[in-house]
């Protein structure tokens, strides 16, 4: 399996690399507009607030957060299709406001929610190849269609493709201009697991071979953990955490302790509940949610209470647990 390389000493085999994207205090407030029904202005919505981050050459950064966290708005601002209320965006050290056509030549984008016109796959890609002034566009299109397993659909109308096929064409579009940075809004949504896996492999290959940087949103936490070097977590438009996927997962203190109990299942349940640990029993299996640093003490106490178990496993917290914990905090607030 193709593995991402660790960023710390030498990401993708190079020493600390150039910054390809630098975002400073990016803020977006959507004006509520005037409501003729209420005869007053609607409340403005704060979608993104003072978001700052940098992405280096060859780095894959995940942009995570629950629905409405501001991920898509951030990506749209980076593309220039949504105007920022405040803040600056720089690609390759240059301000995008002043150098947009030049900079966007080296940027591309794909979203699971985008579609393509009523043209064949080849024609659609050719239009984008021309927009990006790609040299030898036919060759490039052939290569990308082959990489994404879409060669046989070359002359098929884009609208006649399945959601998964269209996603792959949109990814081919995203790579058409040899981008140095890619903005990917849920690029593998609607793909079958095997295709999603091959897409992830392709993305990692592009990262390693050409140093393509990526900003990546996804609701598939396992995918983010596999692909991303670093994760930025947004909640209500603000960055609440920024770390490696493992680093974020480690901030979740609880783990799940599974015990296959031979004798004393009822006692275990009462004991765990008495100490405030959530416990679930299914057959002879007990599942206890417990802080990681309390596991040893808990097991000691079980032994003292003569509760015997034949098998034990500990599920360490994952990025998904972190996501759920953060989303839970949002619902509470």
């Amino acid at each position, binding site marked *: 399996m193709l593995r991402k390389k660790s960023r710390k000493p030498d990401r993708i085999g190079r020493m600390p690399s150039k910054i390809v994207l630098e975002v400073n205090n990016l803020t977006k407030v959507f004006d509520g507009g005037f409501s003729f029904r209420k005869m007053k202005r609607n409340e403005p919505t704060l979608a993104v607030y003072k978001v700052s981050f940098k992405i280096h050459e060859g780095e894959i950064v995940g942009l995570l957060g629950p629905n409405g966290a501001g991920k898509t708005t951030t990506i*749209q601002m980076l*593309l220039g299709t*949504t*105007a920022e209320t405040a803040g600056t965006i720089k690609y390759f050290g240059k301000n995008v406001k002043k150098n947009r*056509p030049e900079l*966007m030549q080296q*940027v591309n984008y794909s979203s699971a929610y985008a*579609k*393509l016109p009523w043209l064949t796959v080849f024609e659609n890609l050719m239009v984008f190849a021309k927009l990006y002034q790609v040299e030898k566009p036919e060759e490039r299109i052939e290569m990308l269609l082959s990489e994404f397993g879409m060669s046989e659909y070359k002359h098929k109308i884009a609208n006649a493709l399945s959601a998964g096929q269209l996603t792959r064409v949109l990814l081919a579009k995203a790579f058409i201009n040899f981008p140095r940075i890619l903005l990917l809004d849920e690029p593998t949504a609607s793909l079958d697991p095997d295709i999603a896996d091959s897409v992830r492999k392709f993305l990692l290959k592009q990262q390693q071979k050409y140093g393509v940087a990526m900003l990546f949103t996804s609701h598939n936490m396992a995918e983010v953990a596999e692909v991303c070097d670093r994760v930025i977590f947004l909640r209500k438009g603000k960055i609440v955490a920024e770390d490696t996927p493992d680093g974020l997962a480690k901030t979740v203190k609880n783990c799940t302790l599974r015990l296959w109990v031979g004798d004393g299942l009822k006692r275990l349940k009462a004991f765990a509940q008495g100490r405030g640990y959530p416990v679930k029993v299914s057959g002879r299996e007990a599942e206890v949610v417990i802080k990681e640093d309390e596991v040893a003490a808990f097991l000691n106490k079980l032994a003292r209470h003569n509760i015997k178990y034949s098998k034990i496993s500990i599920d360490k917290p994952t990025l998904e647990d972190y996501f759920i914990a953060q989303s839970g905090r949002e619902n509470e607030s």
Partner: protein
Amino acid sequence: MSLNRVKAIWWRHAYDLKHNVGRLFDTFYWPALDIVLWGMTSVYFQQKAATADIVLVLLSGLVFWQVIWRSQYEVTVNLLEELWSHNLVNVLATPLTIYEWVVAVICLGFIRMFFAIGFGLALVYWLYGVNILQVGWMMVPFVALLLMSGWYIGLVAAGVILRFGMRIEVIAWSGVSLLAPFSAIYYPVSTLPEWGQRIAAWVPASYVFEGMRVVLSRGQIDQAMLLKSLGLTVIYLVLGLGFFWLMYQQRRKLGVSSLE
């Protein structure tokens, strides 16, 4: 047969009517437009029934109105096509600038207009034996002015669609028609009531069609009309570009993706 299910469909369309201004607009706009346009033409015919070149006047009006219609249609429908196919963000996320997009659709309209007009002229000749080209090069400045009129109308309509979205897409077909009664396509401005004549004075196409009739009847160009039309067209074109740019910036504030 269930009346309740039939009613459900009524409700579906009643709700649609509430949100789709275009449907409501269609109900009243087109009949009103036809009544005004053809009513005025009938009044003119009644007064000038004996005019020999009436067929030429009518058919040339019909063909040259296509210049305005086609050039504005290309701007608005090309924008709508991107919206219908959810492709606008894809396109605007490329190095393409909004000015380049405008130039592209305007040029496209120019090329397609030639085909449409060529076809129209040929059809008129084949069906009615009328050769509108008999007036020669004198038509060129008028056609150019009509083409530019189509651009500014198209830019305004496209700007409105960009700002308010597809719920107002009916403007792509109906916007230009609003000017038809005041453009003196088939009848002179003097046929209009006084308030209509005041409006027509601000519509560049009215000078063009009036001027064309002068060319058809006397074989000469009325330079005053041509200059008035040119002055107004240039002003409107600049304003149209400014309006489109403003609406595009407004849409960026709301997010282009929210249009799709």
